[in-house]
């Protein structure tokens, strides 16, 4: 039986990469009230979560 952490980790890693790239390429694209690079910071969090899930699934296998 495959591990649910694999597809979840994969999706979050892809989202993380997309968000980090968006944050780096268009740092000035900010919503009206945002003071930070929301895409970059959130993207890093997504990436960490995604990679952790993948690592946990790999370790269990």
């Amino acid at each position, binding site marked *: 039986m495959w591990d649910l952490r694999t597809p979840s980790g994969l*999706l979050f890693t892809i989202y993380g990469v997309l968000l980090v790239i*968006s*944050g780096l390429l268009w740092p000035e694209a900010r*919503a009206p*009230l*945002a*003071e930070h690079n*929301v895409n970059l910071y*959130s993207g890093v969090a997504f990436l960490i979560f995604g990679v952790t899930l993948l690592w946990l699934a790999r370790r269990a296998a």
Partner: protein
Amino acid sequence: MQLHAVDYLILGLYFAFVIGIGWLLKRRITTSSDFLTSSRSVPLWITSLAFVATNLGAQELVGMCASGAKYGIMTSHFYWVGAIPAMLFVGLFMMPFYYGSRARSVPEYLKLRFDEKTRAFNAFSFAAMTIFSSGISMYALGLLFQLVLGWSFTASVLLSALIVLVYTFLGGLTSAIYNEVLQFFLIVFGFAPLAWFAVQRAGGWQNMAARLPEVMTHSWKYTGDASANPMGIEVFGLVMGLGFVLSFGYWCTNYLVVQRAMAADSMTAARLTPIVGAFPKMLIPFIVIVPGLAAMALQNMNLGYSLPVKGNSYDYDQTIMTLMAQFYPNGMLGVGLTALMASFMSGMAGNVTAFNTVWTYDIYQSYIRRDAPDSHYLWVGRMTTIVGTILSIGAAYLATLYNNLMDLLQLVFSFVNAPLFATFLLGMFWKRATGHGAFTGLVAGTLAAALTHGLTLAEGKGAWIGNLHEFESVMAQNFWIAIFAWTTCFVVTILVSLFTEPRPVEELRGLVYGVTPIPHERHLPWYKRPGFVSLVAAVSCILLNVIFW
């Protein structure tokens, strides 16, 4: 709100993943029990997150954020009073009877414990309720996307329903549960940044609180008197009505959530499902209610942000969407919308899978065709997924045409639900309770609920018989309706049971306290025992109440 290619890419990837998970699980389905009850095979961490996620529908997210903007921290009562105690109770005291009996569903438990008519009453009302609630949430989602993104109502309703249909049709309950976990992660990671950045912008927690009326930053302080707080509730109605009757009625007897625990792979895992789920559940207010508070504070800061207006009051239901537009650039905006879509799907899939099982086992197999081979019931389960989805879409369109009819139906369902917990409590803990007693109690409790609504007035609602009392708010009225319904059901069930023939004790083995083996967990290390984990959850929940009192 303008979406870019990256947002569509994020949304599209999500759709591909949920369907992919359904596809991967398809091979595991060979019997009707695999499809409808996951054959008791799902690990604990998955069932406990699914238990929380299935209740975290889009209406809940939008509604709780709206309530946060309108009432403030008091909204947390729906979690810390209205969910945690009941979740711990169902895990500790009721799961041994659900999981330990041969019942495949909650209505079937009623059949085994009481009789056919009690099961029929519960099965039919529950089946109708799941269809209408998934229809109503589909309607709400369609309206929201139409309003904010300009998408066609029909397109968003059909697309989201189709995706839920595909993955539940492929992998049944297991697919719904696995996807609920992915959806749970997306909801948390999609909304937590919003809460974080919005509170930061409002100057951090202390400064944000200083910009709000004091009544919005306390959960208990102003509940001594119903007229002192914006919810219009007082502490007795709150604790007894919401904390006891409504919350125990929902978390302990609603098959929608109980089904997740019953899919767990062992008795201990089934008991721990709601107990472990209590931890994420008690933290959800920080991602769904706090953005509402921040929105209210930001509005008072002259930043050019204001809550949308509808008529002569705020349109609180749009709070979460307007905040996203203020804080999320393209990219995160796609993630936020995906999270909203994910929450809608987890709620709808919960309804669809619960409807499937109740329809196939409790209605079709019991009243239409009893002795067919199992492959026939697997086929019926699959077809029910399609029919249930079509009926939900129908209910969504009915809601666009007859809004008042939907309000009326929801009211009737709340009357039927209010007394339920009394029936289960007596059924599980009192051997003497009889089928006639349970059925009469349920009917009497439902009538008592209707009668209370007919005799009291709140915000112009109710009092269609006469006006004996006026409540400060509809919420307070609901709490008291529940209290009267529960008490009536409890008393009537006891009285009628005493005058009717009880079932022989041998038939109640595994169903009632006293003739059911108590699951012993002495072989487990102490920190994995349901009792200890519940204690930690209870202490944490009390601490949260103290901090935000």
